[in-house]
């Protein structure tokens, strides 16, 4: 992974010192809250419902064990002993005190981390496929390019005050695990006549106006990436709306002007930008790429892995869901579920962080990833060592066998933490997971993505959930809308609202009815929920959600 240069380290230290002085001036009254707020947001510090929240960037979800241990130390020393991994592959600390934050940032700088541009109308943390560099289906590791974009976008003077925040995602695999079509810019690594490049997707996004991104360029040569990105950002910076926050994202710019008009403007700007680059970015990308060289994979006999699968049904069930194919023979990708039934999705205690760091060091070539689905990945584990990894994970409460299943729920912090939320999302996820566990049906139901947001900003990606749940405030009461048929992969689709919302005590039974209906409706065990939905349409699923007509009318009035 990328190691900071002396320049990077000095830059981050300077920002910590600057913020330390800003906090001191806020505390001694030299700065008002109005003056201080934009400064703290530039350093990832929000004021939420119960406390401050520090959002720390984990670039493209990549961590080393030392960094994970430092997150654990920060959680223990300045927070409440846990961290919350987010759908942006970041980590959030929910309880810092203002005067401790400079020390927290200093501790992050000690391990090459920071919280810069995790808020504000800037280019945010670049996200990537969490299996990058390991997946069997990958064309190329997208992380060197993601790192190049991170460096280019960090403190880029032209793009510090965009009309709105800006999110870039990149995948090197045709199987899109990075939700590229729901980002402001999605980059898919492709080749043409043997030459590497990108399909550039523009104007995707979720939130109050969900949009699937449109193809801006079907092939952009790799060498042109940064000037082309700069042309897009420069175009958006001038054209994007600043009169209405809710219409300021580039998806609205694309919607209002059309993708063809945007393309014309970007292509007109592109030559000017390209002329200014001069090739330095190409040289630097090569230097970055050298730091992402694959680890020295061993040729280990996988026999112990297969023997353990044959002998232990619990281990077999866990590997069925939590181990994915690796590009190197004899290796597997281990997904560690942070979704124990009834737990808060994405939370890990400091002790669990240390266990994961130790396992990465001992069995995984020192590599850790955070997925946008709020789990942790050990991307490079010899199959022979996976039984030992599983045993250690079980001892730490991290052995849940549910990756990709219905209880592997994305949930935003919702009204348990977030000042923007209109309803809670975590308790809904907890209750659904516990109910599915009690029913014992989620293994039979197979791949099924439930995603929950506690407001229309859609941090929980509910629009692209096979079953999406949106929590709202209806006349002072929590109410939950259900969307069906969403998809965040290469066949991306925005889910369709099923009908009237459900009260808090109705939503779990409603989801249960949906899953039971699917089990009845499907062609066979190989037909997934999404496939069945696409084959049958919404009607039979709506019938399961709203089994009686009279209560339906009542709900309609209430919603």
């Amino acid at each position, binding site marked *: 992974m990328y190691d900071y240069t002396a320049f990077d380290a000095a830059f981050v230290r300077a920002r910590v010192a600057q913020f330390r002085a800003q906090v001191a001036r806020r*505390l001694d*009254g030299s700065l*008002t809250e109005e003056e201080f707020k934009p400064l703290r947001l530039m350093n990832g510090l929000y004021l939420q419902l*119960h*406390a401050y929240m520090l959002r720390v960037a984990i670039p493209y979800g990549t961590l080393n064990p030392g960094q994970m241990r430092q997150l654990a130390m920060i959680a223990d020393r300045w927070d409440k002993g846990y961290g919350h991994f987010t759908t942006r592959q970041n980590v959030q600390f929910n309880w810092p*005190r203002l005067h401790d934050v400079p020390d927290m940032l200093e501790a992050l700088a000690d391990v090459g981390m920071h919280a810069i541009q995790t808020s504000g109308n800037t280019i945010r943390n670049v996200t990537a496929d969490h299996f990058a560099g390991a997946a069997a289906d990958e064309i190329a590791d997208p992380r060197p390019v993601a790192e190049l974009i991170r460096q280019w976008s960090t403190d880029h003077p032209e793009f510090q005050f965009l009309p709105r925040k800006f999110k870039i995602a990149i995948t090197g695999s045709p199987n899109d695990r990075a939700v590229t079509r729901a980002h402001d810019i999605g980059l898919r690594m492709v080749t043409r006549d043997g030459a590497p490049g990108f399909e550039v997707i523009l104007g995707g996004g979720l939130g109050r106006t969900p949009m699937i991104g449109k193809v801006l360029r079907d092939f952009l040569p790799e060498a042109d990436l940064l000037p082309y990105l700069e042309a897009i950002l420069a175009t958006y910076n001038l054209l994007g709306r600043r009169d209405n926050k809710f219409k300021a994202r580039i998806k609205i710019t694309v919607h209002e002007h059309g993708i063809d008009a945007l393309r014309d403007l970007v292509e007109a700007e592109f030559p000017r930008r390209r002329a200014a680059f001069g090739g330095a970015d190409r040289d630097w990308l090569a230097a970055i790429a050298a730091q992402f060289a694959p680890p020295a994979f061993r040729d280990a006999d996988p026999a112990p892995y297969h023997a353990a699968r044959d002998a232990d049904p619990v281990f077999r069930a866990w590997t069925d869901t939590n181990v994915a194919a690796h590009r190197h023979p004899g290796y597997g990708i281990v997904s560690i579920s942070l979704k124990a039934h009834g737990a*808060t999705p994405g939370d890990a205690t400091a002790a669990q962080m240390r266990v994961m760091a130790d396992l990465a060091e001992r069995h995984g070539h020192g590599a850790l990833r955070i997925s946008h689905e709020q789990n942790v990945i050990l991307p490079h584990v010899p199959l022979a060592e996976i039984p030992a990894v599983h045993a250690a994970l079980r001892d730490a409460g991290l052995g849940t066998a549910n990756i990709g299943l219905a209880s592997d729920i994305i949930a935003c912090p919702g009204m348990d933490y977030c000042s923007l939320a209109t309803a809670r999302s975590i*308790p809904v996820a907890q209750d659904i997971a516990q109910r599915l566990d009690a029913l014992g049906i989620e293994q039979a139901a197979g791949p099924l993505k439930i995603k929950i947001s506690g407001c229309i900003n859609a941090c929980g990606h509910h629009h692209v959930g096979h079953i999406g749940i949106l929590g709202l405030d209806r006349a002072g009461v929590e109410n939950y809308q259900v969307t069906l048929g969403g998809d965040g992969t290469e066949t991306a689709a925005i889910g369709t609202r099923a009908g009237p919302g459900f009260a808090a005590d109705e939503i779990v039974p409603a989801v249960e009815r949906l899953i039971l209906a699917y089990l009845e409706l499907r062609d066979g065990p190989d037909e997934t929920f999404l496939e069945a939905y696409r084959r049958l349409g919404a009607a039979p699923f709506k019938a399961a959600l709203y089994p009686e007509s009279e209560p339906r009318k009542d709900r309609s009035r209430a919603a």
Partner: protein
Amino acid sequence: MSRPFTPQVVTANALVAGDVVYLTPDGHWSRHHAEAELIEDPDRAAARLAEAAAQTGTVVGAYLAEARPGPAGPMPVHFRELFRAQGPSNYPHGKQAETRDV
């Protein structure tokens, strides 16, 4: 005809700790909703909010929140204010985990 005035409390977040605080009848800030002043007059509500908002070295984001009388003091009306008073509902590790009732 204007709507009848709903009783309110002044609430904010503490500047340093960030936690939820309430303005008490004697003008101090309490971490406990039940110790808040239940304001039943719109003029006094506006005046108290102005006093709170001026305390920029102590609190952030003061506002008026609806409340109602309870056996031990004012109680929240909206569920958002209930969560602010108690702490997160996913598991008790906010104010509800402390020894004193809120």
